[in-house]
């Protein structure tokens, strides 16, 4: 009789172990992609010309329009905004086409897509595990909850502030940047704030305020800090944006640096914050008692706009998406941190706005 109990117990364990426990995805800033990088090229609004480029570290070469070449007759669509890699699946939000495109990372083959309603504008993705994620919706002033494995939308619209952009997750809390889209909705409630939302109740816990035109939110798990990049309002030409630091546990603001910073990204160790400042790449050494912005290197072409920034731990380099004048093919610049004078340059599609490693 005992052996039957053991057999039943073994079968029970076997059965329950079929449903794997979701695991937390590796943070973007610590993802040591050793194979290559995807460069997402946003294209131009209404031009339907988003593309995805693929850089291979081994061959040191780039394949332009990798998605189009891997999927004959398919294109990404109009205005792609974000790309996230989870294992062999890559998810791309295509905002004006109202879709999240799903692609096999290793081959570039399309695996399908999540199609939103025509009024939506999926913008940025934040995965909370390898299947569930949240997506900001710029036009509907909301976020959606998505099962990325089954390609289904679990919750279509959870209201947040106006024009939500960046989104991050830490300890059951979502942090959503309510930009207000600059001046357009600057006076709408919650504009220029970060909504802290408890994902178990879907309720807002707190509003982190005084962040006009906030775009980026970045969680630094190593230090337990949240970094928020805001640009200020375009009409306030004499004022700057800045970076604010919050304690992830108390949600209190701990430090703030006032200068126009964009595309904030963390080093793998979490002790350095890289960003564009004016026409430079600069950094803050976060462990310093009173960190000051340090210029690493300058954009040599003042008429060209650097648009995206990522740090690769694999080759300890900063990857820059150069949008040039936003209307021509851009370029990818790779600056090894130990040799800033010799960047590598590759041509990309129009407006490279996100670089991720796999």
């Amino acid at each position: 009789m005992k052996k039957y109990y053991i057999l039943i117990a073994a079968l029970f364990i076997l059965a329950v172990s079929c449903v794997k426990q979701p695991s937390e995805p590796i943070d973007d800033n610590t993802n040591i992609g050793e194979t290559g990088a995807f460069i997402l090229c946003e294209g131009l609004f209404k031009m339907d010309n988003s593309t995805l480029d693929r850089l291979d570290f081994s061959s040191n070469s780039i394949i332009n329009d990798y998605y189009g070449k891997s999927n004959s007759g398919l294109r990404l669509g109009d205005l792609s905004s974000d790309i996230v890699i989870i294992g062999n699946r890559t998810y791309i939000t295509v905002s004006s086409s109202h879709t999240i495109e799903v692609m096999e990372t290793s081959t570039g083959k399309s695996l399908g897509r999540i199609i939103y309603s025509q009024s939506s504008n999926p913008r940025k993705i934040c995965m909370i595990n390898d299947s569930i994620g949240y997506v900001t919706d710029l036009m509907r002033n909301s976020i959606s909850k998505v099962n990325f494995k089954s390609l289904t939308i679990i919750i279509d619209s959870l209201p947040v502030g106006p024009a939500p952009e960046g989104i991050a997750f830490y300890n059951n809390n979502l942090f959503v940047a309510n930009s207000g889209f600059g001046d357009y909705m600057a006076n709408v409630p919650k504009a220029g704030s970060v909504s802290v939302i408890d994902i178990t109740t879907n309720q807002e816990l707190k509003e982190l305020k005084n962040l006009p035109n906030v775009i980026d939110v970045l969680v630094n798990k190593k230090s337990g800090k949240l970094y928020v990049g805001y640009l200020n309002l375009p009409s306030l030409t004499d004022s700057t944006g800045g970076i604010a630091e919050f304690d992830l546990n108390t949600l209190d603001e701990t430090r703030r640096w006032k200068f126009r910073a964009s595309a904030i990204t963390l080093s793998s160790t979490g002790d350095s914050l890289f960003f564009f400042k004016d026409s430079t790449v600069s950094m803050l050494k976060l462990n310093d008692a009173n960190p000051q912005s340090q210029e690493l290197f300058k954009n040599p072409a003042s008429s060209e706009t650097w648009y995206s920034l990522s740090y690769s731990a694999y080759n300890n380099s900063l990857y820059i998406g150069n949008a040039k004048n936003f209307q021509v093919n851009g370029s990818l610049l790779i600056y090894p941190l130990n040799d800033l004078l010799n960047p590598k340059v590759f041509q990309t599609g129009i407006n490279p706005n996100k670089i991720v490693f796999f």
Partner: protein
Amino acid sequence: MKYYFFNHRFYFFKYCGSVFVFAYLIIVFSAIVYSQNKNEKDSVKTKFPEIVVTASRLNKSPGTEFSAYSTITKSELTKIGAVQISDVLQFIPGVFIKNYGGMGGFKNLSIRGTTAKQTILMIDGVRINSTQNGMCDLSIIPVDMVNEIEIIRGGNSVLFGANAIGGIVNLITRSSDSISFFKGNLKYGSYDDFHSAFNSRIISSAIDIDGSLEYLSSKGNYKFKVIDFGERKILHRENADFENLSVSLSFNSKPSDLNYSIKGIGRISDRGTPGAVTQNNVENAFARLKEKELIILGSSSLIINDDQIINLTSLFRVNDYLYNDPLLKWYSPTGLDEIFINRDFQLSTKYSYKIQKFLADINIEGGYSDIRGNMLQPGVGNYKKRNSFGISGLLENSFGIYNESYITCQLGLRADVFSDAGNAISPLVGLIFNAGSLPLKFRFNYAYNFRPPNFNEMYYLNYGTSNLIPERSHSFNLGLSSWIISNTTIEIETFLISTKNQIISVPNSPIQWSARNYGEVQTKGLEIRLQSSLFDKTFNFQLVYTLQEAIDKSPDSITFGMLIPYVPQELIAGSFDYNYAGFILGLNFQYSSYYYTIPGNSLNNLMPSYTILNVFISKNFELLGTNLELRIDCNNIFNAQYCVVWKYPMPGRLLKGGISIKI
């Protein structure tokens, strides 16, 4: 905040009252001048046959013969079966219509590779370009009130003022009919395209009255093909319906020493404005535009004596603009509600002195414009105004050379001041060589021209830049006209337009742009127009050819040396008609070579070439003293699927029938 001009009775009467007072003052002023000179003049009135209010064709106005010049007559307008002005302008060399599709789609004019803002649209010699956006949408100008169209290609700010960089289109409304008539037109076709127009002219012993009422409507639900997610689909254009009602009424004095004319044009339109059709998306799918516009033109002329004349013209224009897009949530949680009222007042006076072959003109202009709206920069508030003042002088003289050949020279200078948009000094030099007994005429002109920034470019929310300065442009034209073969005219023009400080939209991000004085553009080209009427006008044809190149010459620009978007390098158009026993069988076509749609000349956004062929047949006959015309048109007969503007599909084959009655 709401600015419904026409719904606000107080403002309506206030403004209308102002206009009538304004017109009255012009007449009184003219009468005073007239009475002061009455005793000094004689009865000769033929020395200035070219004045605006008395002449049926402005081409005799001083100056224009030095430029590339074309006309479209009423019979050509009728023959093309035009329901919108854009339908006929394509048959003029150097003209490209940026057509957003369907009857309700915006139709912006480009002449010689310049932008719509660099072109002037006039009614009876008075500019009607909006000071809000610098342009004029050709889809909303009532075509049936137009008797003739003049097109002057190339820049000429001395004669025409601001925005005269690419060219000038002048719509002449006064009927050339010398007897009273009533005319009605009805046309109906695919997509419920409907056009009805009623015109009349009443001639009395004291005054001529012209009136027109025109209604245009369309569902605009034409089919087009797309490829979404790799699948070929056929969709219908949605929210592209269009309605436009226009009324015009003018009072014209009989030709005498004191002539005057007052014309009022009122217009109401309501249309859907669907945008680009991208993958799984139609931009602005629910956007709508409602406009109300009132234009009042006044003009008078006084012949002082054999040698002197004074012209006065005035304009009052108000445009009430309401654009709504419920899906543009980035403007507000309820979408975008863009509300503007734009008003323009213009007053100009010109004194001309002509003796034998010498002509001298002095022209003084004053203008006031303002804009009220809810989409201006935060620092601007809800209101902005602009005052302008311009003064110009022009000299012309002719010199005989040998036999009957002669040279005519033209020199001009103009100065303009704008209260918020800088100043401009604009010279002009022109030369004509007439080969006397040979059927040849050569012309050359050079002009330095300008365009001040419009209100949108300076003050529109998150787009405008308040410190913009006027665009400046050099314009050269060298042309030849010949009529060597009888009943056949050939015109050849070469041109060069070089514009600096061009105001262009520079992206701050892929979706947010701002206006800057940045660009330098050089356009050069060749235009040929051949017109012929053979066998006693039984067979008529015209061929129009344009070869041009517009290049980005902005120093230090990434796109330096690249082609400017939306400027086809080659345009060909032609029309043929055969007349027999009251029947007219006609055929016309337009061809455009490829062009780029973004400055980087990306092959991914290359607009392919297209050819459109249209045919018609009409029959004219008389019934009980009434002239009747029955007509059937088939446009785009081969059902070509094409776009003029990237991702804005154009209609396929379009059938329509019409009847016209003239009593």
